[in-house]
Structures are given as structure tokens and as C-alpha cells.
């Protein structure tokens, strides 16, 4: 039997954590993981944040990020244990035999150097190619990855190409030294779906053409199903299940894997519009100060009481700007906003307390939306004091009531945000918004930073609260699966304009406009061969035109 390219045995990884108000202590974050990877094969590592998947990926390069340390086990690459080799040999391993593609190419490229220099650096340093050959190979890779103007794109600086292009350049960087193994760490997670599909296809083709082996790390099972031969499911630093991609997707054995596969199974019956909308956005046009183009162009939408309007769009489509206009943070240059049958003044300082109370907001990053030095009780209690003048025992009781409503229960009042998990933090933010007894809550990408299962929990909670409190949601998201799960009506935004708007059943049913079609068909589906199907379909369509 031949030796596998990568052999991991009993890998244990530790880190030092600094809990607030306590002494730093060492914890174990990966508890003995074993796996093999043969040359030319792709293994998907899947799990939620904190599952240790990136940490395991970097361990294949004998690297620990930040305070992370490999504390036990063996990592064999090409027949030698890299944890026991000298640092000089480790340096030859990194960038030579094993290379890395990170989540954010924008941050991983040095802004002060040309792309070509960075792409070829490792190959030249490791003595694999001369400068001339490395550059020729880079151009070949640029071409293979579908980058525009492959001959010259290397002469640009990172800020001069788009995010999706830079992610492809990062892949070229990893493939340039002809490594045996590439660690892809969430390479498409930061991209818009319509960009993701192209980058994913480019990566898949490059893996196949170069015959390189890969560790493909992601939290998105639908994505990994498109590229990997085997999948390993991780949960909190331990392996849950390992199998072929086909088996994991179509026949998951473990309960946790089954939950991951069947995530986003929320069913929500669409409600019919009423006669009297709660929020009417009419002819809103807006631009930021000091710029000369409109970020919102004649936007018209309505939201009915007790319902959810989803605003869908990719980055830069203007969806968050619309939220800023409705809240009064950015006065529009034209148009009116009618809320509860009264016209809202365009800018925040002129709105009265009642306007402020009835219109609350929840943000994407629960972390930064809370004061880290305040307890959960103080955070939720503040709107109670501010809007209802509640004090003492009455306030305490109401806080507890709200905590029960968001399913957190006893013992949370005195905790600090740093002691909560991501999902718990977002729940506290929801409670804070609810405390004001609003009629409308603007939810700006509230589940985007959360793991799928946690996000599911939040969506279920929001739907439950809507039933109890009869509150309306303006739900801003780039994630179509979320939209399907909770919306009553949908507005699709593209470059500042609403391109499609109506009840969910209409918006998501054909015939589609071009953009909505592109958007919908780009959302990865949890089945094998989906990527090829979509690409084939698109090829035929463009040939037909």
C-alpha cells in the first residue's frame, strides 16, 4: 500500500483563552483527529465556527494562528512528520509542498506589492522555478482561472482588481509553486453568490487540471459537495462523521450531519397584503455626501403589519442604505416615507420619541452592537428606562420576561456580552429591540455572521415573536435561503434600484428577469453535480442567444 500524501494521527491542538475577569487558561480545541488524504484527492472539512476546521487545515502546514499551538499527535506530509522537523524544513514545506488560500484575499495580499510579485514569490523562494518560469506559470494559471487580461493582470496592485478576481489570484498564488496539497480555507465565503459560482468553478477546474490534492474548508455543505471526493464533518474539535461526498449528502448517518444537511427547512406560509400598509417607501432616491451618484434610485416598497418584507441583493446593491434612509440616518434627496399613516421627517434629529420607539433595528454584528462593558440586564433595560420610564422591580421583571421570550431564561441578566455565544448575543440584540415594543424592526443581515444551525434558530425565534407581538420585519439579506424561509414579500435590489418586487410566491416563480434568474440559480444546492448543471445550463443559454 502506498503512503497517503497527508496522514494525520491523534492531532490535538490547544489555545490560550482570556476570559473577562479571569486568569488566562489553556484549553484544548481539537481533541485528537485522524484522517488520510491521498494525492490528487479533495477532502472537505465541514463544521460550524469553533469546530476547529481552519486550525486543522493550518496544522497541515505546521502552523498555529495567533496563540494556537499544536500540542499532540502526528502530521505526516510526503512521508515525514512535519511536527518533528526543524524549522528550516518546515519553511520548505510551507509554500513549497503545501500552500494556503485564505477566506479574504483582499486582506491576504500585501497592498504595497504587485500581484505578480506576490503570486510568484513562494515558487521562486522555494527554488521551484526561476523568476521567468514562475511568471510564465502564473500567467498560465491566470488564464486557467478565467481572469481577464492574464498577460497583464499581474502588473496590477491588489486594490486594482475586484474581490472575486483577487480570490482567483490567491488560488493562482497557491498553485504557482506546484504544491502537492492546497489548503482552501473558506475561499468563496466572503463573495457574493453570483461571484462565488464562478470562483468555485475556476477552483474546481484548477484542482482537476493540476492534479493537486486539496483540503477544502467551509461551513457550507452545499459548496463543499461540489468540489470534494470525501467529507469530514467536525463538531467542537472532534470528528463526527467521515465518508464519501455522496454518502454524507445523500445518506448521513449521524444526527448532527443530518441536521446540517436538512438545514433551512423552515416553512413559512405567505400572508396576504392588507389594505393599510405599515410602512410605505415612495420614490426614495439617495446619495452619500460628497459623491455624485445615487445609491438608491426611485425605490418604492410597502410593508404590511405583522409581515416580513425581505430586501435581497448583493454587496453594493443599496439594501443597507435603504435601511439608513428609513431610520433617518441618511436623509434622502427625494421621496417620502410613510409610517403608520404618518409621514416621517427625513432626518433623525427631528423625529419624535414615538417614531424612534416604534422603529427599531438589529444589526449583523451583534458583537459591535453591544457595549462590552455592560451586562445583558443593563443592555436590555436601557430602552425600558428610556421609552417607558421603568425602574427597579418593574424593570427587572420586564427584562426577565424579554429574556424568557428570546429563550435564554434565568441567569443571563448579569452576564457580559463576551460570555455569550454568537447566537446568544444576537438574541440579546433582538430582546433589546423588542423592549421598545416596536411596530417595525429592521433586521440588517442579522443571520449572516452566524452558523447555519444557529441562524436557523434565530429565524425560528423571529417568526415566533412576529406571531406573539405582531411586529413587522424589514429583513435585509444577501441570502436567498433565508428569504425563502421567512418573507411574505420580496424586493430584489440591483445597483440601487428595485428590479423585482411583489409577494414571495410571485417573485420566486418564473418567468424571471435576467438578474433574479442569475441570483437564484447561483445559490448552491445540496446535491452532487449541481455546479456542472448550472454551468452547462448557462453555456447553452448564452449559445442560444
Amino acid at each position, binding site marked *: 500500500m502506498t503512503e497517503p500524501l497527508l496522514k494525520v494521527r491523534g492531532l490535538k491542538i490547544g489555545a490560550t483563552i482570556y476570559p473577562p475577569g479571569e486568569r488566562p487558561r489553556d484549553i484544548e480545541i481539537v481533541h485528537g483527529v485522524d484522517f488520510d488524504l491521498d494525492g490528487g484527492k479533495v477532502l472537505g472539512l465541514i463544521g460550524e465556527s469553533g469546530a476547529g476546521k481552519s486550525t486543522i487545515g493550518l496544522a497541515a*502546514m505546521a*502552523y498555529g*494562528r495567533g496563540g494556537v499551538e499544536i500540542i499532540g499527535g502526528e502530521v505526516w506530509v510526503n512521508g515525514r512528520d512535519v511536527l518533528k522537523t526543524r524549522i528550516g524544513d*518546515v*519553511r*520548505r*514545506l*510551507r*509554500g*513549497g509542498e503545501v*500552500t*494556503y488560500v*485564505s477566506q*479574504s484575499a483582499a*486582506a*491576504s*495580499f*500585501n*497592498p*504595497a*506589492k504587485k500581484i505578480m510579485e*506576490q503570486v510568484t*514569490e*513562494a515558487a521562486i*523562494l*522555494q527554488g521551484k522555478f526561476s523568476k521567468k518560469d514562475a511568471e510564465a506559470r502564473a500567467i498560465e494559471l491566470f488564464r486557467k482561472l478565467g481572469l481577464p487580461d492574464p498577460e497583464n493582470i499581474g502588473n*496590477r*496592485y491588489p*486594490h*486594482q482588481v475586484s474581490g472575486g478576481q483577487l480570490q482567483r489570484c490567491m488560488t493562482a*498564488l497557491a498553485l504557482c509553486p506546484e504544491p502537492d496539497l492546497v489548503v482552501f480555507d473558506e475561499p468563496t465565503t466572503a463573495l457574493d453568490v453570483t461571484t462565488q459560482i464562478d470562483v468555485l468553478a475556476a477552483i474546481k477546474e484548477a484542482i482537476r487540471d493540476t492534479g493537486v490534492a486539496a483540503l477544502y474548508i467551509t461551513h457550507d455543505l452545499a459548496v463543499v459537495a461540489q468540489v470534494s471526493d470525501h467529507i469530514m464533518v467536525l463538531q467542537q474539535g472532534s470528528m463526527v462523521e467521515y465518508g464519501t461526498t455522496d454518502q454524507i449528502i445523500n445518506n448521513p448517518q449521524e444526527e448532527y450531519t443530518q441536521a446540517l444537511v436538512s438545514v433551512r427547512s423552515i416553512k413559512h406560509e405567505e400572508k396576504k397584503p392588507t389594505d393599510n400598509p405599515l410602512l410605505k417607501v415612495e420614490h426614495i432616491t439617495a446619495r452619500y455626501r460628497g459623491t455624485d451618484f445615487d445609491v438608491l434610485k426611485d425605490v418604492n416598497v410597502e410593508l404590511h403589519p405583522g409581515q416580513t418584507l425581505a430586501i435581497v441583493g448583493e454587496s453594493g446593491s443599496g439594501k443597507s442604505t435603504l435601511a439608513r434612509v428609513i431610520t433617518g440616518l441618511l436623509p434622502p434627496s427625494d421621496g417620502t416615507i410613510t409610517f403608520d399613516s404618518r409621514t416621517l421627517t427625513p432626518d433623525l434629529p427631528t423625529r419624535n420619541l414615538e417614531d424612534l420607539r416604534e422603529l427599531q433595528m438589529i444589526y449583523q454584528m451583534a458583537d459591535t452592537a453591544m457595549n462590552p462593558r455592560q451586562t445583558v440586564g443593563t443592555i436590555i433595560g436601557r430602552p425600558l428606562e428610556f421609552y417607558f420610564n421603568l425602574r427597579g422591580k418593574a424593570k427587572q421583571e420586564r427584562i426577565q420576561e424579554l429574556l424568557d421570550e428570546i429563550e435564554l431564561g434565568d441567569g443571563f441578566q448579569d452576564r457580559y456580552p463576551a460570555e455569550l455565544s454568537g447566537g446568544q448575543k444576537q438574541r440579546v440584540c433582538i430582546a433589546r429591540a423588542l423592549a421598545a415594543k416596536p411596530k417595525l424592526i429592521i433586521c440588517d443581515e442579522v443571520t449572516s455572521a452566524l452558523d447555519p444551525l444557529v441562524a436557523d434558530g434565530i429565524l425560528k425565534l423571529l417568526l415566533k415573536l412576529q406571531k406573539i407581538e405582531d411586529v413587522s420585519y424589514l429583513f435585509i439579506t444577501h441570502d436567498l435561503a433565508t428569504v425563502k424561509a421567512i418573507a411574505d414579500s420580496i424586493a430584489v435590489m440591483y445597483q440601487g434600484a428595485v428590479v423585482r418586487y411583489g409577494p414571495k410566491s410571485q417573485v420566486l416563480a418564473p418567468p424571471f428577469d435576467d438578474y433574479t434568474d442569475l441570483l437564484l440559480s447561483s445559490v448552491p444546492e445540496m446535491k452532487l453535480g449541481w455546479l456542472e448543471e448550472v454551468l452547462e445550463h448557462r453555456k447553452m443559454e448564452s449559445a442560444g442567444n
Partner: protein
Amino acid sequence: MHPILKLIAQRVALGIMLLFAASILIFAGTMMLPGDVAQQILGQSATPESLANLRRELGLNEPPVSRYFSWLGGFLTGDLGTALTNGRDIAESLGSRLSNTLFLAFWAAVISVPLAIFLGLLAVRYKDRWPDKLISAVTLTTISIPEFMIGYVLIYWISIQLGWFSSVAIINDGMSLWQKLNAIAIPVMVLTLVVLAHMMRMTRAAILNVMQSAYIETAELKGMRMLSIIRKHAFPNAIAPIVNVVMLNLAYLVVGVVVVEVVFAYPGMGQYLVDHVSKRDVPVVQACGLIFAAVYIGLNLIADIVSILANPRLRHPK
């Protein structure tokens, strides 16, 4: 026009305006002093007639605005007027002083700037280990000790005990470069020790800040050595803050070396200025003030321009 040229032109224009404002301030400031030049030349016992005569002769009866412009005009054409105390042409005596000061500052900079940046890089490479701590401790100590104290200590050890260099730094045109360098060796050492800490610590802080970036991890995962990562990937992104503090220290080397000049009896600008301030020689003080302002503004202007040029987003717009 390339946007970067526009930015630089703006900076230069701003610098000139600032210098103009500084000249007004200097002129107005000296005007506010009690008594006038005629009074100071002739002394307390002067008769009103002779005062009036001299005032007319010096043009002091003109309104302040026109006097300001004739002063500024003279300055721009190289005519700084004559010193009251010895009647000598200011431009002439100032010229040799200024070149002496620049000579000293130049050699101090040539040694201190590369040394500070090198030590800063070294401190980053061995962060929190003994080389870092040693570098920090030594440079902080030298910046904390008053410069005249360092001067005297160095004179004692190097000049007197070891007998290597001269303790007085008098130079003149007849000396060869080697002789001059020998003469200023100890003052250069003192100045280096004084300015080293600032620049070294800013280099260390700026690079450490950059070392947190994801692209440093990328470089590590390419298998690069720490020192070449710092040199190739971190340093180019830390230039702007480093240049700023370097320029401030260069300005100090030109403008703030009075004490060192006095300690070593060095014939530079500082000593010249102090001499004439104590004698209330207003034209000299004005001339020195404007030259110092020009040095400060000029060096900071260079720092700004280097910062602009160091930013790839400005250098290569989309």
C-alpha cells in the same frame, strides 16, 4: 492631471501658505516688543532728534504693512538686513552658521536614521525577547538624560579618558572633511543618542501594527524567514508613520541643537541665535525665526509627500 500630482501640488501650496503665515507671526511678534530698533541702537540716552533721524533713515515711520513687505521682499532676494550689534550683513554671517548646522545635522541623520530603523526592525524580530527589551531600555535611557549631560559624559569618557576625539567641535573652512568629521564626532554621537529612541520606537510600533495583517500570515505560509517578511512585506506598509517621525527628528537636529552647540562650542545657528536674542538684535532673531520655520515646514512637507507616494492606492488609482 494624475491625482497624485494634484495632491502634492496642494500640499506644496499649503506649505507655502503656512510659511507665509509664520512670517507674519514672526514679524508681528517682534513688533510687539517694547521699544524699537532705533531706540535699541542709540540706547537710553539718545536725544529725540537723533532718534527721529535714525527712524527716518531705517524707514521705521513707514506703516507696519509696507515694512513687513519690504522685509519679506528682502528675505526672498537674499537680503536679510544688517545686524544691529555689529553692523554686519546678516545673510553673510548666517550663511556659514547655517551650513555648519546643516553639516552637523546631516551627519547625525546619516548615522541615526538607518540605525534607528535597523534597531526597530530588530526589536520587532525579537519582540518581547531580550534584544527587544535591551534596545528599548537603552534608547529610552539615552532620551531621558538631558543632552548636555550625555555631552559631558561622552567628553569625559571618549575625549579625556580615551583621548580619541576633540572635546571642542570648532570647525572652519580650512579643514579637510576628515578633520571636520573628527571634530564633530562627539556631538554627532550625542545627537544620535538623543533622537534614536523616538524613531526606533515609532518604527517598532508601526511595523508591529502591520505584522497583525493577514498578508503577513500569507508570507509566513510561503515559508519566508521572519526578517525578510519584516523587510519585504511589513516595512513598505509602515513607511508613512516612520517618515513622519524621522522628519520631526531631522527638524529637531537643525533647529533644536542649541544646547549641544553650546556644550561643544560649535559655531552653528543655535549659538548665533542665542547670542543675538540676549542682545535683543531683532533683525537677526527675525531672520533665524523664519529660517527655522522654513526648515520645519519643509521637512514636514517632505514627510507628507513621502506618505502620499508610499500609498499604492494613491500612486496607482483604479
